């Protein structure tokens, strides 16, 4: 067990309870109650979204997300009394996201960039006020949000963008690492300059 890491860079995580942070990373945990038609609609939507990668392309544009997930829960596994057995009256959607930046900015970005996607994902939830304007939507998310009791990230200093750029850099650095020794100095210097130009956005 290691002690809490202290981030090297400035903390960008803001706007939520301290238990929802680990360094730069923020947890959001939301349950919403689904109308009858969401029971069939949401699983179909999830399946289509999984099958058509371009549907998650917009999510990738929100480069501050590390991991996100949605689940529809109609019943919980039974573990014996005093737990009550059986289906919920309504299905419930679980949503969690792990992102960096500010809570408010995250919801703003979701609402403005994923407007139709948000409506598709939450349109079957009771009380969903539409993504825009953002104030009622933020109030809705806050009402349904539960704070984490313990939150952990293996690399709390790193933002998602930083990680994606570091991975891209690694891929682009590989040929120079592999071939650098065999190059003449002038050839190497030219290749290095070209590499630096190519990876400027990763640094």
């Amino acid at each position, binding site marked *: *067990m*290691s*002690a*809490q890491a202290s981030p090297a860079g400035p903390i960008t995580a803001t706007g939520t309870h301290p*238990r929802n942070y680990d360094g730069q*990373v923020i947890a959001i945990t939301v*349950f919403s*109650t689904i109308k009858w038609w969401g029971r069939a609609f949401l699983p179909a939507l*999830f399946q289509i*979204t*999984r*099958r058509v990668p371009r549907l998650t392309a917009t*999510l*990738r544009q929100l480069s501050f*997300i*590390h*991991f*996100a*997930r*949605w*689940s*529809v*829960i109609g019943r*919980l596994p039974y*573990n014996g*009394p*005093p*737990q*009550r057995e059986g289906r*919920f009256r309504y299905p*419930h959607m*679980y949503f969690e996201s792990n992102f960096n930046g500010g809570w408010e900015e995250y919801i703003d970005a979701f609402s403005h960039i994923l407007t139709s996607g948000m409506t598709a994902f939450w349109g079957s939830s009771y*009380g969903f006020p539409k993504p825009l304007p953002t104030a009622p939507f933020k109030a809705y998310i806050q009402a349904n949000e*539960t704070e*984490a*009791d*313990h*939150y*952990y*990230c*293996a*690399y709390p200093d*790193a933002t998602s963008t*930083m*990680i994606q750029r*570091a*991975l891209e*850099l*690694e891929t682009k*650095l590989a040929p120079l*690492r*592999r071939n*650098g*020794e065999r*190059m003449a*100095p002038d050839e*190497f*210097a030219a290749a*290095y300059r070209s590499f630096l130009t190519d990876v400027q956005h990763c*640094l």
Partner: protein
Amino acid sequence: MPSPNVSGQAYAFMAMTPITPGEEQPLATYLRGLRERGARPLAKLPRTHIGRFVIVPDFHNDPAWKQPREEHLDLHYLIFTSNFDGDLDSYLDELCEKLAPEAKEIWGRCVGCPASAEGADLKRYLKHNQIDTGLFFAAYGDATVGQVERALRQRERMIDFAISAQGLEPEALQQAFLAQFGGGD
């Protein structure tokens, strides 16, 4: 069609377990106290990217939302989610072994958890309470924790190198680069 719990090589696990009545507050105190004590138990599972424990006391009901009838949880529930590398079985094997002391304090306070709260019994319990993911998004799901950490370290080194190598002649530049990054993949 791959499992909806999987994106690239990353797996999204979720277990939702009922908390034994009377244990809600002690469990919350324990989980919240981890950070105060500087404890990061999930760091003992090096395949874990990001994980969380959340106690859910109830569903939110708002009369303004025109939900025909209110719905409440029968008990408080503990949610554990983890975004980790590789397959579930071997991950849970690791968890049930390396997290045994913490597991007793955590799932040991949940309804139906085996008394030992470790090993194969705990694994069976967690799998029994698994909630499948409908949609899992992983921004870098092909990269393991180790690969992420290595890439981040290398990026830092590259930034330092790019600054320090400014103005070097080609031969010196090549030598400095190879000394730092040579040796291929």
